[in-house]
């Protein structure tokens, strides 16, 4: 409890997340007379020694290289051709792009930032209000967090000891569902408010679509390769990350001939900084995770929850509401790292599949990143597009409601999430 108070105090004083965690975690060891402080340092070291976790740097690097190698720009023109004729125009492009990029990029926030930079201005020029554009770019980033690879799902699998391969496959249908739901929502809002004039445009001919798809076949092939190689045992998810990096380099250098050695160096350099930030938080969370396990907090929580109710649906809803509350206040990575080891025993004790819960958890905390007060994705996008938070809020609520509706459906009908993993993997 003292540790939690100290952590929140430091965080609010503006001490970076990783250091707030380390300070409050170390304080516990210093004050305890049975725990040597060396153990805290060991937990940080040990946090870097997980093979599944290697997927994090790989997919961060792969994302940076995709942007430099011309894969991203080809996906944008493909998405554009596919959906910009629908009422709402470019707003659909950002959604479809998120779904396409979902398969190549691991980080929702990086994707939202990239799309705000590239699509923000064209969206405004096409007659969409700035707040509306910022809102849909931000919220559609949830799709990226859901469709494999996803850093959130990797961290969840790592902390909760859940198969990352199963989690990856489980994210596919919810991602598709979110894509469709958000497109319907955009279409409804745009046609009722007459945003963006698309009357003159018509759906592309199949021939056009095929030729555009041919131009970005290497990028479209990638998510397919990823799933196939993981499922049929050529690669573990971490190894698939290494494959993703080399694949992107090969496509960029040999296929599209756009990636230069200098750009590759820049992509590596930017990735190092992203990795440094995320991993210092992961290492720091190692200390706090030890204290949580040492205090037997998960077991106690599981006991007190099962004292209240044994109903899986109720437990699931309680957990999700809790996550939503914390997710709107805290950064997503840290919520996943700290709450996964606490909540997984709780949900397992009432028989909820941890794969089902994992997809919901990652969606909910990523959703928290799109809402006030501490929505990092929201701030990032509004910052890049120079959009006020007020106009963002005014336009975003239909999207929030859509996401909530999808979340409720996914929570109540586990089979939507579990159908694919149960079909492709026999239950271990």
């Amino acid at each position, binding site marked *: 409890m003292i540790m939690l108070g100290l952590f929140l105090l430091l965080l609010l004083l503006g001490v970076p997340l990783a250091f707030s965690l380390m300070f409050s975690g170390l304080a516990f060891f210093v004050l305890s007379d*049975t*725990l*040597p402080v*060396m*153990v805290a340092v*060991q*937990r940080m070291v*040990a946090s870097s020694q997980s*093979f599944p976790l290697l997927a994090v740097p790989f997919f961060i690097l792969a994302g940076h290289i995709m942007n430099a190698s011309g894969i991203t720009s080809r996906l944008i023109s493909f998405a554009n051709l596919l959906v910009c004729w629908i009422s709402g125009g470019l707003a659909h492009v950002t959604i479809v792009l998120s779904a396409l990029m979902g398969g190549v990029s691991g980080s929702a926030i990086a994707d939202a930032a990239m799309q705000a930079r590239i699509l923000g201005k064209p969206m405004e020029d096409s007659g969409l209000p700035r707040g509306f554009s910022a809102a849909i770019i931000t919220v559609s980033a949830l799709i990226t967090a859901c469709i494999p690879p996803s850093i959130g799902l990797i961290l969840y699998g790592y902390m909760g*000891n859940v*198969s990352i*391969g199963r989690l990856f496959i489980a994210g596919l249908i919810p991602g598709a569902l979110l894509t469709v739901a958000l497109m319907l929502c955009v279409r409804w809002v745009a046609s009722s408010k007459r945003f963006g004039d698309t009357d003159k445009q018509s759906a592309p001919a199949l021939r056009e679509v095929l030729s555009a798809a041919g131009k970005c076949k290497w990028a479209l092939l990638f998510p397919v390769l990823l799933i196939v190689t993981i*499922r*049929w*045992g050529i690669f*573990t998810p971490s190894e698939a990350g290494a494959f993703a990096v080399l694949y992107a380099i090969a496509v960029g250098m040999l296929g599209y001939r756009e990636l230069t050695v200098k750009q590759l160096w820049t992509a590596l350099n930017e990735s190092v900084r992203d990795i440094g930030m995320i991993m210092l938080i992961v290492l720091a969370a190692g200390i706090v995770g*030890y204290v949580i*396990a*040492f205090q*037997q907090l998960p077991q106690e929580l599981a006991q007190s929850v099962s004292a209240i109710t044994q109903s899986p649906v109720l437990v699931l809803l309680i957990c999700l509401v809790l996550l939503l509350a914390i997710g709107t206040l805290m950064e997503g990575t840290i919520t996943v790292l700290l709450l996964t080891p606490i909540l997984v025993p709780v949900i397992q004790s009432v028989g909820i599949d941890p794969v089902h819960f994992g997809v919901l958890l990652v969606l909910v905390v990523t959703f928290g990143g799109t809402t006030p007060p501490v929505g990092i994705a929201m701030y990032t996008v509004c910052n890049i597009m120079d959009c006020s938070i007020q106009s963002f809020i005014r336009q975003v609520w239909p999207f929030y409601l859509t996401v909530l509706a999808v979340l409720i459906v996914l929570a109540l009908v586990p089979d939507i999430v579990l159908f694919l993993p149960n079909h492709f*993997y*026999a239950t*271990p």
Partner: protein
Amino acid sequence: SNPEANDASKRAKVLNVVTSLSSSDPMYLGLQRFKALVEARSDGSLSVNVFVGSQLGNDDDILEQAMAGAAIAVLVDGGRLSVYTHELGILGAPYLVSSIDELRKLVGSELFSRWNGKLQDSAHLRVLAFNWWQGARHLLTQQPITQPSDLSGVRLRTISAPVWIRTIDAMGATPTPLSWSEVYSALQQRVIDAAEAQLAAVWGARLYEVVSHVTKTGHIQLISGLVTSDDWFNSLTPSEQAILNQAAIEAGDYASQNVLAAEKDIELSLTDAGVTITTPDRQPFIDATEPVYNQLGYTQLRNQVRDFLNGKGERE
């Protein structure tokens, strides 16, 4: 009276016992027995918390925490301790003993106590008891195995410690270290072709769903010990120390008996699940793994162990 009891429970020295096994493993029952025995006999001055599934770190991490003086103990096999005391590694060497009784005799011997003393000096670690027998290791494959040459080119998952890797290599397979939690999916997806484990683990991890053959080579007798911090142990009173040692031995015997009792049932259940269980002629495997002792520098030590088991060691 009540306040005194509260005081006593506040002052209770807590030992945290950690295992990488799950709560469905027979060893877990042994750890629960250990907890019950210690808490009952120490009259509240000692208490034990059991952590399953490596919640506080992997086995090597826990050993390191114990070295740093934390009140922690872990259930580990000899192979993992061989970096600290070379002699302890021989407990994981192939075909060291011909029966469990011999093994039980060895870990209760003067010879073993000397190894324990070395461990205290070299790493500030102390064995409470090393009689936690988990079963014999057998081969889990997708095709029948009758002799070492059948294993040629087979990627076989084993524990990532020298004695294990050398043994599997000597048996003819390609040793492939992988974390235990990944073995099921790796076998299913054919990332690896085979594994080796004791029957209780085959059952616990449901590996019978992803392999078709169990070949009872019994190449290694998996025996573990409860290892704790020597510094912490020395901070206890002599009677507390005695309680811990005695409880660890009794609980270890209890856990081993559980394994023995469970193995027959598990074998039947595995057959029901469609797994073919065979017992090969062990001599070719014994011959094939013979060089392992020389490679790891255990030749002399094995003679010492043999002398002891044949009764010649009594004079020492």
